[in-house]
């Protein structure tokens, strides 16, 4: 379990004059669930794009299984064992749900071994797993948003990945659906698939992650166990603003003072 699967080392990405990511480094252990969080525009999706080979980093590199992702063409990244979902879902609109998933099963890591029929059988299994069997023959363009998110997950799973990147698959789901999604992700993880989860829902990410990385303005500001990371002052500042962070510090100072005073003052006589 301790063996690192994915190494992200000093990754920097620039869009024009703006560094969308600068010097981001961390490693993801095999079998882990890594939560990637940060405010809007902090570079989460950019990092997903770098890991999945869609963007080439200006500095640094992402390594997986001894290979630099930047050296691998986008269409071969999934053959290495890395699959992703898109935050803005990209279904093949004119194909039905089953065909959408089958395309992944045809061209993914095990795709060359599968016949068309075998790919459709695999698609049926996966649709069952993500609870889409009920709309298997409906065109992707006719699916609801939660179902399109499920379809993204099923398409990614059809690639038989070792590492699965999930970009906000729970956004827009209601509380029950989030629970179902979390349950699905846990089951996927139990099969030994490493997960990297980008999500805004703090509760969801804390409950599922074994480790959390926080990005703000393109930099990594914290990394560690969920509870520690969320208590860190930098993270509070990044999420809630410096005024809130200062007030939080003041409140803590007042609280500390109160405790100190209480300790000095002898307990009131009963």
């Amino acid at each position: 379990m301790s063996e690192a699967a994915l190494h992200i080392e000093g990754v920097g990405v620039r869009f024009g004059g703006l560094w969308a990511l600068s010097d981001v480094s961390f490693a993801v252990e095999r079998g882990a669930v890594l939560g990637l969080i940060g405010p809007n525009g902090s570079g989460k999706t950019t990092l997903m794009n770098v890991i999945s080979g869609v963007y080439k980093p200006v500095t640094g590199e992402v390594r997986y299984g001894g290979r630099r992702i930047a050296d691998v063409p986008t269409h071969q990244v999934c053959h290495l064992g890395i699959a992703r979902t898109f935050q803005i879902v990209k279904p093949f609109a004119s194909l039905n749900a089953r065909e959408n998933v089958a395309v992944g099963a045809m061209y993914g890591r095990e795709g060359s071994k599968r016949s068309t029929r075998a790919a459709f059988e695999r698609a049926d299994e996966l649709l069952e797993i993500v609870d889409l069997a009920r709309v298997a023959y409906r065109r992707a363009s006719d699916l609801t948003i939660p179902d399109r998110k499920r379809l993204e997950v099923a398409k990614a799973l059809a690639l038989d990945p070792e590492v699965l990147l999930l970009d906000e698959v729970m956004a827009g789901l209601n509380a029950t659906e989030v629970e179902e999604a979390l349950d699905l992700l846990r089951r996927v993880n139990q099969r030994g698939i490493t997960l990297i989860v980008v999500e805004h829902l703090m509760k969801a990410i804390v409950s599922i992650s074994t480790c959390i990385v926080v990005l703000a303005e393109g930099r990594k500001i914290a990394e560690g166990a969920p509870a520690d990371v969320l208590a860190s002052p930098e993270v509070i500042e990044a999420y809630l603003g410096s005024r809130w962070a200062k007030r939080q510090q003041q409140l803590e100072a007042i609280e500390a003072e109160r405790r100190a005073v209480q300790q000095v003052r002898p307990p009131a006589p009963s």
Partner: protein
Amino acid sequence: MTIAATAAALRRAGLGGITGSPLAFAVVLVAMALLLAVPFAHNGYLNNVFRNILMYAAMAYGWNLIGGYTGYVSFGNVTFFGIGAYSAAVLSAHGIDNLAAGVALGAIASAAFAVVIGIPVLRLKGHYFGIATLGIALAVADIVANLDALGGTSGLAVHQVDDAHFTVYYYAMWLVALAAILGTYVIARSKLGYAFVAIRENEDAAAVLGIWATRYKVTAWAIGAMMAGAAGAIFAPANGFIDPSITFATDANVFPIAMTILGGIGTVAGPFIGAVILAGANELLQRYFVKAHTLFFGAMIVVIVLILPRGLVWLFGLRGGLRTWAKSLTTYKA
């Protein structure tokens, strides 16, 4: 079995989606079988008219693979037709009058040209790809017109069989059209077809799913080129003479596109239905309106595309096709 249950069963069998309406495909196969009877009329004119329909059908299927299934709108597919025609003509000039040899060389030469040109040009998307292919079509026509070895603007004579009705060319064209129809059907249902459609729907998402877009785009173009090249290789001896203005004609470039769109883009039945209706209508209009036929022809295309933007095949939709169509006329669609 009720109609709804049959439809559901067919969809489960993989029909109806990627191939288009199975009913329309059945109609096409029946029509093809009927077309076998044309030469029994022993009428050279009829053979000529229907051979033209089959020729346009083969070219339309060729265009449908890249333009319809893969979503790359090519304005240069006439080049493949021309290469096929000149392949047969050059063979004929060297004393080889074997139709099969001409078709084989025409198909291979067209496919090779599609691969060589496709690798750089298929990197372009949308309008840029369209304009680049149009440029290639014009350039190739000009080059051929200036090559003395290919007869320049005065063209080449091609040896013809000694047959008043040219039945052998009719059946050869019929075979090429049938191969294009069945080939499209098989490809559409295979892994290849799904790669094409995935690229059409979203090339980035297709790449993430492991589809090497360049490879499949070039494949689609090259297979389509073979269909047009084979049709050209039969046209050359059937016509007895070719020159750049015939083999690289604007009509031969635009008709297959119009036919595919009219019949149903990205379906197995669409190009054939479009070819029969457009080529047939063109023939009739030409007969009865010697001067104004292009006017009526153009108007007909405009009206059909406005009323049936998804093509005539859509009328074959198993699930309330007509009802949905009637509804779509009253609701505005961009």
